């Protein structure tokens, strides 16, 4: 049913024992191990199911699968490993034979002497004279290999140690000689031909494994699922508390599902059981004691993907606020504000549509949905910023721009926010700031303000939730003297700065007073004067939101550079200094377009990565630290049971 989150019984009460597995638990787990080893030999990966199987089919085919097919797979796999080992040993043999090919001796002449000592190996300098000095009776064969001299020295056995000393002075390093017979070259050829035979035997075996894999893949995965389910079921009593006559299951269930669980259990057990809820007060005590109450995140389907981002940080505790909703509100806006380009937004959206069909696991789907919603916002912000593949891109050609003299006028008046227009609507917004060219000085200043403004709202929401969370835990001191001052500090610091810029001294004074108040509150707080040490952190929190502008500028800058490089540098240069686009040569246009596409492609990749990572950081560092996971995170609600993927219900 997948309803009850079972709490493991730890055996610490004398009247109850830990339960024992029921039924065929042992057989099931043995079969499972067998199956897993077969699937490992076949290199079988878990994948999205193509078809599903009824349990009866699994039961009837399992025996054949595990014993006949399994034995076949294991035998084939073992033969392949044996062949590989043999090929390897033969290759080693060839490697040791090759240097001997330069010596004029057959292989049998290296072995089988009683009164002769044999030295075979490479030397750095000629040895004949020195060997003759210590052992007048000798036989030396020399041949030059690629970068060393190969020698075979035969001396009487009683001179062996002297000769060995002489040889080592000449940089002798020994080569081992395999115990074979006949000519060296023909021995190598024989080994090579037997490697070929072995490889020829291996190829059909590999194909056989691939065929078995193809034929039984789904059935094997389904059987794996069935066996996992059975083992889980039969071993469940290990998590129960048991007496001689009865057992107790302890667990959590969402409140609204309780009556369903109760009725189903009662009908299944024919009235032989008792299902009861613990009292609310007792439950409260458990929470206070820090018992791991599991959390089930419950969000609307649109917000669901953002649970991924929450979970990546920590599972919310039972009493904590689930921040997924906040991430849903802020994250895509931040993503859009950073990327802010109609062209990139649409491109990413289309690519993700394709990927969505490819990557079907739930994790990937969530991730893709998160970025997809972000790319919609990027398109919307792109319209505000007047960008289609960067400034100088397609916007001017599609929507048109201001005439030259009006641009000059705006620049002189210090009100230049860009030259794009919304088609016949012209420029919109107060002072005609939209479409906003993000590279214009005025626009940068405006966006600095906007970023900090978003930052203050973001941090304030975090702080308010922090106060609420601590009140929920009943820790008033933390709420009012640790979290509230942060809120005051950040809000009034911004008001003071705004006053400075606008020249309103009363705002500066008001801000200053409240900043002082918040610092006094911090000193009175649980950390005492040490609380003041956090103040630079709160300040840097706000400055950190400048990244919304900064990363965006970097992305616009690169797009601008790509367009500038292609249309105003490479194309005119390769056309011999032509000024007008009509005079560009074909070669110039092709090279220019290549550069254009490649730089935009790199920018697009960065444009997915950094607008994702940085808002993520803003949430994790700037926001979550204010309210989330102060107690180290919770436990996810994972009800007992198994999701059927390959099995028919």
């Amino acid at each position, binding site marked *: 049913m997948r309803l009850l989150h079972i709490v493991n019984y730890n055996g610490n009460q004398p009247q109850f024992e830990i339960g024992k597995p029921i039924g065929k638990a042992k057989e099931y787990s043995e079969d499972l191990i067998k199956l897993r080893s077969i699937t490992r030999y076949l290199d079988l990966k878990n994948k999205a199911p193509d078809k599903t199987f009824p349990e009866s089919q699994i039961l009837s085919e399992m025996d054949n699968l595990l014993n006949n097919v399994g034995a076949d797979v294991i035998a084939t796999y073992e033969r392949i490993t044996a062949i590989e080992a043999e090929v390897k040993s033969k290759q080693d043999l060839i490697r040791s034979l090759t240097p001997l090919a330069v010596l004029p001796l057959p292989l049998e002449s290296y072995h089988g002497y009683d009164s002769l000592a044999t030295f075979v190996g490479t030397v750095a300098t000629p040895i004949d004279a020195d060997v003759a000095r210590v052992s007048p009776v000798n036989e030396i064969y020399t041949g030059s290999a690629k970068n060393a001299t190969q020698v075979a020295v035969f001396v009487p056995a009683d001179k062996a140690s002297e000769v060995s000393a002489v040889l080592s002075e000449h940089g002798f390093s020994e080569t081992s000689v395999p115990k074979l017979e006949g000519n060296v070259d023909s021995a190598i050829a024989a080994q090579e031909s037997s490697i070929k035979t072995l490889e020829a035997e291996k190829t059909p075996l590999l194909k056989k494994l691939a065929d078995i894999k193809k034929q039984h893949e789904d059935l094997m995965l389904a059987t794996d699922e069935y066996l996992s389910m059975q083992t889980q079921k039969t071993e469940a009593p290990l998590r129960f508390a048991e007496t001689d006559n009865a057992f107790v299951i302890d667990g959590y269930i969402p409140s609204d599902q309780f009556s369903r669980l109760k009725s189903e259990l009662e009908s299944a057990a024919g009235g032989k059981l008792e299902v009861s809820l613990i009292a609310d007060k007792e439950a409260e005590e458990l929470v206070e004691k820090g018992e791991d109450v599991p959390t089930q995140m419950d969000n609307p389907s649109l917000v669901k993907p953002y649970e991924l981002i929450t979970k990546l940080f920590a599972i919310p505790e039972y009493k904590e606020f689930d921040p997924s909703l906040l991430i849903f509100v802020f994250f895509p806006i931040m993503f859009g504000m950073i990327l802010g380009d109609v062209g990139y937004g649409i491109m990413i959206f289309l690519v993700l549509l394709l990927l969505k069909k490819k990557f079907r696991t739930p994790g990937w789907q969530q991730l893709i949905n998160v970025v997809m919603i972000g790319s919609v916002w990027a398109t919307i912000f792109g319209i505000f910023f007047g960008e289609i593949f960067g400034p100088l891109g397609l916007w001017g050609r599609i929507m048109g721009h201001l005439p030259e003299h009006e641009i000059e006028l705006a620049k002189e008046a210090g009100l230049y926010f860009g030259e794009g227009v919304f088609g016949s609507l012209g420029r919109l917004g107060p002072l005609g700031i939209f479409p906003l060219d993000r590279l214009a000085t005025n626009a940068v200043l405006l966006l600095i303000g906007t970023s900090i403004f978003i930052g203050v709202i973001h941090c304030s929401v975090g702080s308010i939730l922090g106060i609420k969370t601590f009140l929920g835990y009943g820790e008033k001191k933390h709420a009012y003297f640790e979290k509230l001052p942060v809120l005051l500090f950040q809000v009034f610091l911004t008001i003071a700065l705004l006053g400075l810029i606008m020249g309103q001294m009363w705002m500066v004074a008001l801000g200053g007073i409240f900043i002082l108040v918040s610092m006094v509150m911090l000193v009175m707080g649980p950390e005492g004067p040490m609380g003041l040490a956090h103040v630079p952190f709160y300040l840097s929190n706000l400055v950190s939101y400048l990244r919304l502008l900064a990363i965006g500028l970097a992305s616009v800058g690169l797009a601008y550079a790509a367009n500038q490089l292609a249309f105003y540098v490479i194309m005119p240069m390769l056309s011999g200094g032509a000024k007008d686009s009509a005079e560009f040569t074909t070669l110039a246009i092709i090279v220019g377009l290549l550069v254009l596409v490649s730089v935009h492609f790199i920018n697009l990749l960065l444009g997915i990565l950094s607008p994702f*990572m940085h808002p993520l*950081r803003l949430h994790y560092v700037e926001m*979550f630290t204010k309210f989330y996971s102060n107690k180290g995170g919770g436990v996810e609600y994972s009800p007992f049971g198994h999701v059927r993927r390959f099995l028919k219900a």
Partner: protein
Amino acid sequence: MAVVADAGSLYGLLAVGAGLATGLAGIGAGMGEQGIGAAVVGVVAEEPGFLGKGLFLMLLPETLIIFGLAVSLILMFAWTPFAGIVTP
């Protein structure tokens, strides 16, 4: 004593300063992240559930660049206080 400089070269020096502010801050942040990143990869290899917290720790020094950038922006766009020391 008035410093004698023409507006052009003063603006050039401001630009160099702005570049240094962002660039050096970037190097600093990179050096900071290097150690953290290595440690995080190590931890995540052992315990994949730590990825989120690891990212959080790894991204902490990023703020340094933003400080550098803020200084650059002030230098580039709010340089009027320096205009007084330029003799025409």
